[in-house]
């Protein structure tokens, strides 16, 4: 029983890491209805910028602030150069634009900094900690706490700030929001900046776990089923989806893997996502579109 619990808890904590990436997708989707394919590249860009600055001798906090400033600048640039000219275009057009953007950010990050693998030490031990009969990683606990703090912060941002309220209005009804004077370009820049901050947090935690390298962009592959399960429009859904995918992957790998020849986690989360699409297309917490006919 303790082995089952340990696997479950380990999977749940791994799922939190995926949820961190998924939150970035949700933010942009909520504000603009665009699936931002470049979110993984933003994770790489943020982590690579941060680690390059710390390697150049900047203290941790200053490197974090400078990276955040760069991510905000990137967000504003994306809004001006890519999104603004494409206002009123179809969602597929915007999606394709983010697809192109992802290659530019990936290539540009590696070109301007470098393609080496960097070690990122956040000073958080990644060692086993006994919690009763089970062992968990101290790093995973910190990651879970970070995700919790991030969700709380974003909830406050959306509930209490003017920008947050405007975002919710745009998400609910863009035309109505525009008619009452909400400026869409400024909002898009703001939400991309927040997504950049989320990418920084995710990039730091994933970078500390696996090194800062190109493969950080692969993390988004697991964020996709997380979004489908949780719902594209809900931060709570991203967290719930992450936990389900993490736990499901771990348990399937342990209990189904030996029966099916291993590597179950390659497809398990996607299988689960397809099942959700069939049964609950909007995901667990996603908004179900209401259409009058």
């Amino acid at each position: 029983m303790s082995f089952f619990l340990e696997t479950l808890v380990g999977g749940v904590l791994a799922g939190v890491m995926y949820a961190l990436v998924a939150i970035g997708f949700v933010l942009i989707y909520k504000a603009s209805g665009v699936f931002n394919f470049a979110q993984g590249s933003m994770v790489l860009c943020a982590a690579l910028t941060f680690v390059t600055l710390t390697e150049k001798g900047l203290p941790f906090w200053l490197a974090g602030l400078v990276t955040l400033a760069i991510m905000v600048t990137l967000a504003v640039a994306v809004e001006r150069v890519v999104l603004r000219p494409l206002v009123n275009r179809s969602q597929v057009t915007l999606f394709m634009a983010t697809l192109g953007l992802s290659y530019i950010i990936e290539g540009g990050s590696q070109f301007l900094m470098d393609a080496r693998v960097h070690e990122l030490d956040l000073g958080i031990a990644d060692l086993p900690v006994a919690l009763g009969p089970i062992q968990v990683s101290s790093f995973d606990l910190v990651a879970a706490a970070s995700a919790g703090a991030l969700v709380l912060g974003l909830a406050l941002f959306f509930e209490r700030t003017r920008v947050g309220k405007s975002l919710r209005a745009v998400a609910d009804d863009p035309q109505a929001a525009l008619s009452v004077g909400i400026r869409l370009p400024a909002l898009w820049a703001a939400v991309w900046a927040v997504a950049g901050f989320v990418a920084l947090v995710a990039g730091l935690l994933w970078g500390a776990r696996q090194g800062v390298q190109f493969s950080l962009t692969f993390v988004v592959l697991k964020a996709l089923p997380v979004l489908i399960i949780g719902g594209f429009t809900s931060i709570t859904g991203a967290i719930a989806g992450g936990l389900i995918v993490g736990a499901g992957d771990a348990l399937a790998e342990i209990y189904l893997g030996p029966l099916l020849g291993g590597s179950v986690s390659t497809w398990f989360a996607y299988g689960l996502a397809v099942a959700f699409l069939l049964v609950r297309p909007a995901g667990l917490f996603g908004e179900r579109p209401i259409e009058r006919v």
Partner: protein
Amino acid sequence: MTRLARTMRIVALAALLGTGTVATAPAGDAARQYFPLPTFRVGAYASSGIPVWAGTIDYLRYINEVEGGINGVKLFWDECETEWAVEKGVECYERVKGGRDGSPVPLFLPHGDPVSKALTEKSVADKIPLVTTGYGRTEAIDGRVFPYSFTVLFSFWSEASSAINYIAEQVGGKDRLKGLKIATVYHDSPYGKETQIPLDLLAKTYGFENIQIAVPHPGNDQSAQWARIRQIKPDWVFLRGWGVMTPVAIKTAAKTGFPVDHIIGGIWSGSEEDVRPAGSVGKGYRAITPFPAGQDFEILKKIKAAIVDKGLSDLKDPKSFGSVYYNSGVIEAIIAVEAIRTAQGRFGRKPIDGAQGQWGLEHLVLDEPRLKALGAEGLVQPLRLSVKDHEGGGAGKVLQWDGTQWAAVSHGWVKSDRDLLLPRIYERAAAYAREKGITPRGEETAEAIAR
């Protein structure tokens, strides 16, 4: 980095994007030997490609600058960016296979297990030898069936066998392997699965329990796999990763409490780029490799003096000089240059084509005196290739990470059980020949073709 250097990089990139290749020599000189390089300097595996190709290019430059070429025939090369992708690798091969400026292609370094397999049949049709050092199809050791594939140095089967032999050394002999639990945590790909058959054979021979655990690509979350390890409690783990899989495995092993010094990484889990991101928990991790790290080898000292210190190196990060990947590039270039030199001994001091390159490879002898003369003693294992043996060596050194660098911890080269493995390899090659309708050639046929 200076503004000038950055500007130069931008110009270089623009050239790369514009043409797809970067040339290093003036055109129209057929007295020079063409040597195409399918590099990968961008994309997911750029961090390994950059030092590998720097090692290769630095050695080729050394041959040109210090030795005046191979018997006076200077080398020139161009790069074709593959991003380590199969389709781009094949495209690069197609682009360069006809040679350049009248100079033929003596051999091709595919630098990727998947692309080397994709090119197996094309290389036979085009008569261009594929030299795959530390990767590639194991059955290609049998050159009677695979005339143009050269799994030189250390095949995956030899890698597995040497790792087991090293474990035997650690536990006090092969008879003590009986009853041990040895888990292989492998990248779930044809490359990762390549050691399953030899490990099964070795387990039956020596009596250890052979446990296989797959990690799906890319391997950036392995909590489930290492939970299984914690449940099984193996005595040793043989880690056959690629890319991000290795540092994540080391970190996950540490967080689940598995002793990192009881993990032996395979060839592609044994570079600085693999272990450095794991941080302090990587201390004690071991890996078996045909590419020993270090700057103390004679040839490395010569390259440093003649190329690196004179600002001629392709290496942008000086810390990578003498790294596993840099040295692998040097080793690969040494083998290629010596094969061309051997072919020149038979066909004359001129640019060599693929069929002649094949002859050179199949008659390549890098014994201790020759390695000493090259300054590669201890860096390259003694090799003797033939039609029946495209591997030649079959041994690796075990390195251990001390937190900042690798140190060799094995007593010289750890040999594989080639006598046990070769009959099975020949059986598999024969089965391949039957399946593809290939008539295996003999030693005499090979010589006749060369004539």
